[in-house]
């Protein structure tokens, strides 16, 4: 077909593909077969009889038979068809589910089926509400009234058209015979229950965000596309390859190391909060807890990255470095992280601050990096951007990893922490205790409060800046120059 099913959508929003619709249509068409389809019965009203009604139990039975599934699944499948709008309930029209009893349903006409390329227009909804207004003589349901007022405000320029069209459609509907009129009203009402659900109704029409590219459009391949494919394949060939034995070995090692620490794979001490509703696990593993758990401390020994990424581990490491008077490395690393992740407005002054504190000649917390990296960094700082200190940061990271990390793991600080680390007992809750836990669930601290606490802590740390070896040396040298007599007097004593 050469007709493109796209109206002049100047907003260029396209609905994403709903693959389930085509499949549901096939099922509904199969249900229509007079021989093998769903059993139909007439619906008896006061004066008229309307054919082609189906009961919920017939739908469920047919689906279970056709797809060889059990009754529960057939019921969910049927409810999905109702929620999508292919079948509508006649009696409880606001609840879009299939009840496996004698409640009646009917098939929806193809015009009112959900389609991917035809969006449901507000204009049509406004016309429907106006028609309903005429029918109900001005007494609409609450949500309908709200929608009516809203549309009247936003579609005011089309309102004359809406009123005219509503009246004409109302009159045209009267031209049909009585049973058909009733069916048409039910159909239209069902359509709008699916696409403008009243409060408390769940329809299946929540398809997510609209796309910027028309999923139905055919994209012709341009020479540019082929060029991109060529570049991609060339880069893939040039990529450094690792032997599968090596990579698989690394994977196996990783799994073996972390197997005991994964709450999905092994027991979570004391108990998994998602299962038992008891938050001890989270309380014990807070970022700034005094006494960490044994598992947590064990994880710090796996790699330097683990140690640094855990806030409690970083604190411990900082304490160790303070004792060694080499805290400037970690401080520099943290400053670089701050620069990388911070807001763009503060970047320039942050970079300058870091330069003054760590990199300049005679800086108070001077870090030891090699000449080439220093050259590159200083040159980059003329036009600072987010990643200008990357080279220096990597150098310092490797330094800490190769040098300080090893010493840390053998240090008394770490041994002390490991001794004090707590290993909680496993909880054994009875069913009634589990219920009680579920009832006592409370929300955790708001992220805003947590962020404030973090910032306060940072400010406190910045205020009480730890002493580094350069500072100590400079202080000592200053002291030496200022008060030699005092020193000699001490020496004499």
């Amino acid at each position: 077909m050469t007709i493109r099913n796209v109206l002049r959508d100047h907003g260029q929003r396209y609905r994403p593909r709903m693959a389930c619709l085509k499949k549901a249509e096939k099922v509904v068409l199969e249900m229509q077969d007079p021989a093998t389809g769903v059993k139909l019965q007439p619906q008896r009203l006061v004066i008229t009889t309307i054919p082609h009604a189906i009961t919920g139990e017939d739908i469920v039975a047919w689906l279970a038979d056709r797809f060889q599934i059990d009754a529960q699944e057939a019921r969910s499948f049927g409810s999905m068809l109702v929620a999508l709008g292919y079948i509508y309930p006649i009696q409880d029209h606001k609840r879009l589910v299939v009840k496996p009893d004698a409640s009646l349903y009917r098939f929806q006409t193809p015009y009112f089926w959900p389609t991917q390329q035809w969006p449901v227009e507000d204009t049509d909804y406004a016309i429907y509400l106006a028609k309903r207004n005429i029918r109900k003589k001005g007494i609409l349901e609450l949500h309908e009234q709200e929608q009516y007022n809203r549309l009247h405000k936003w579609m005011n320029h089309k309102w004359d058209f809406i009123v005219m069209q509503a009246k004409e459609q109302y009159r045209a509907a009267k031209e049909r015979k009585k049973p058909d009129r009733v069916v048409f009203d039910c159909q239209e009402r069902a359509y709008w229950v699916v696409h403008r659900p009243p409060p408390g109704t769940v329809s299946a029409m929540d398809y997510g965000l609209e796309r910027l590219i028309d999923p139905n459009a055919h994209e012709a391949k341009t020479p540019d596309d082929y060029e991109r494919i060529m570049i991609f394949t060339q880069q893939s060939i040039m990529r450094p390859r690792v032997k599968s034995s090596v990579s698989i070995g690394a994977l196996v090692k990783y799994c073996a190391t972390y197997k005991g620490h994964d709450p999905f794979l092994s027991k979570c001490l004391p108990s998994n909060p998602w299962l038992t509703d008891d938050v001890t696990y989270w309380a014990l593993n807070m970022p700034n807890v005094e006494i960490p758990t044994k598992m947590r401390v064990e994880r710090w020994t796996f790699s330097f990255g683990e140690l640094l990424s855990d806030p409690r581990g970083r604190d411990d490491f900082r304490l160790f470095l303070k004792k060694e008077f080499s805290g400037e490395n970690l401080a520099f690393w943290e400053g670089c992280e701050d620069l990388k992740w911070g807001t763009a407005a503060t970047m320039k002054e942050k970079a300058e601050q870091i330069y003054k504190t760590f990199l300049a000649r005679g800086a108070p917390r001077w870090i030891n990096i090699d000449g080439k990296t220093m050259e590159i960094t200083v040159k980059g700082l003329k036009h600072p951007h987010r990643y200008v200190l990357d080279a220096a940061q990597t150098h310092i990271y490797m330094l800490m990893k190769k040098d300080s990390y090893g010493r840390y793991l053998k240090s008394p600080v770490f041994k002390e922490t490991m001794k004090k680390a707590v290993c909680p007992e496993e909880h054994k809750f009875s069913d009634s205790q589990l219920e009680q836990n579920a009832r006592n669930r409370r929300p955790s601290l708001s992220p805003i409060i947590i962020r404030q606490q973090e910032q306060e802590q940072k400010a406190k740390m910045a205020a009480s800046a730890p002493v580094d070896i350069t500072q100590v040396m400079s202080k000592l040298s200053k002291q030496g120059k200022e008060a030699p007599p005092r020193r000699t007097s001490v020496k004499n004593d």
Partner: protein
Amino acid sequence: FNLIMGKEECKTMLDALNKVTACYRHLVIALGSTSDSQNLREELKKTRKKAQELAVANRTKLTSLLKDKTISKEDRAEYERLWVLFSSCMELLEVDMKRSLEIAQDFPLKVPTRHLIQTGMTGSTTTVAARAMSVQNMKYEADSNIDTADLRDLQAEITQVSQMMEEMEMKVQVAPWAVEAKQEAGAELKSNMSVGNSSVGVISICEEEPKEEEGGGGSREAGFASICAVIGFFVIVIVALVLGYLVVNM
């Protein structure tokens, strides 16, 4: 005088287009269901042609009116309002035409393995089509393969309509959002409602809706209740007459 005549003409033509659009929508809704038939396809074709004639006529009239630079500001506002009415009508018509093409292709009438959807609608749509064409009775003259032969015409007509709408957007400088509607909220309740058999229809449809919610059983109860009420009334009247007779005789 000429201007007033022009406006009245416009309004009547727009009313006619509006009526045909509403009827076309009703016909398209019946496509693919058990109301579908050869006749329905022919009705769709005829209604479509009429709609197109009206559309072209409306467009020429309105464009000529809007092009006139000598009209006053109120007149121009009025013509812009009529233009918005016209373009909204055309949008609805275009969507319905495209959808009717899709559904007609999905539900060919002659294929025995392709079943129509059992929607419960079984009556014909002749009266709706007659209303659209403004005739008393519809005459059916098409061949038996109208469902497939018509589709090519329909495609051509859809392209025509789309082109017309694009031209309209390009050439006529009317800002639709600047138009103020004359009708307030709830205006549909006020004006003269349909006369004739429809008033009876209104009440009975209202009755049908809540009854459907109770189900088939509920309707029987309601019938009983009304019969009991009538019987009770007569009993009371008879008792009153008897008492009155006794009082008189005393």
